[in-house]
């Protein structure tokens, strides 16, 4: 989901050079989602109890590992001064190339609209019932939302104590 004008989809989720659009935690979360554990995983295998148990345990371990985001091991990509300069130069050259097009793109085309503007403008105003409907809906929504609070349930970062 994009921001305010929300027409842009997240199309930059692939593996790329880290830039301003690359997700910071993308890969880890991706892994976790790709490996759901279903009951089939356990039932379909023949009963070699010892190895089976071991592999189940391994799977649980692996699953937990995937679900945990190790904040300390994250590769925080800090930018050096020269990297900033390189990027600024790169962006300005790209802008210079597409700059001409941007100017024409900024002027959106209006729809053709109506052939009888005066008739449309002179038409019946919005009914008072509709105005009251939206007024009360907006007021109750604002009221309902004022009661919404984030419940802080558990710590986001957990320290593992290695014995």
């Amino acid at each position, binding site marked *: 989901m994009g921001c305010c004008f929300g*027409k842009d989809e997240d199309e930059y989720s692939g593996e790329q050079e880290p830039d301003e659009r690359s997700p910071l935690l993308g890969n880890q979360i991706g892994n976790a989602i790709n490996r759901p554990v279903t009951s089939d995983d356990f039932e379909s295998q023949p009963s070699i109890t010892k190895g089976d148990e071991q592999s189940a345990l391994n799977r649980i371990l692996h699953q937990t590992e995937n679900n945990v985001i190790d904040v300390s091991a994250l590769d925080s990509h800090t930018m050096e001064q020269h990297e900033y300069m390189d990027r600024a130069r790169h962006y300005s050259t790209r802008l210079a190339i597409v700059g001409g097009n941007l100017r024409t793109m900024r*002027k*959106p085309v*209006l*729809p*053709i*609209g*109506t*052939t*009888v*503007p*005066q008739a*449309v*403008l*002179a*038409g*019946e*105003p*919005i*009914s*008072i*019932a509709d*105005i*009251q409907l939206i007024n009360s809906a907006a007021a109750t929504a604002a009221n309902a939302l004022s009661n919404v609070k984030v419940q802080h349930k558990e710590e986001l970062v957990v320290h593992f104590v290695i014995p």
Partner: protein
Amino acid sequence: MTSPVTQSLERIPDQLGYLVIHEDGAVIASSGELENDEKTAGIIMNMVHMASRVQLSPDRNDPFKRLSVVFDTYMFVITISNHKVYVCKRKYLPSEPINA
């Protein structure tokens, strides 16, 4: 400047003023409370551009016909025709009785 269209805008019931704006943003005609009101024209052009991007129904080819901005006692009604934006400021006098 008078033309058949601006004359008929004058005759809209309870109108307080009108604006005719070219799609490039230039005010072509204005009168009443909106006379030479470039600021209102700018805000309305901005709203018209946003409104033309709103998808009104799942069927994509359903452009908006009229944009209204309704305050307690007055309203702006806006429509597009032939690369021009027509704005009329009218008293808000709904026909139905208020039964709140």
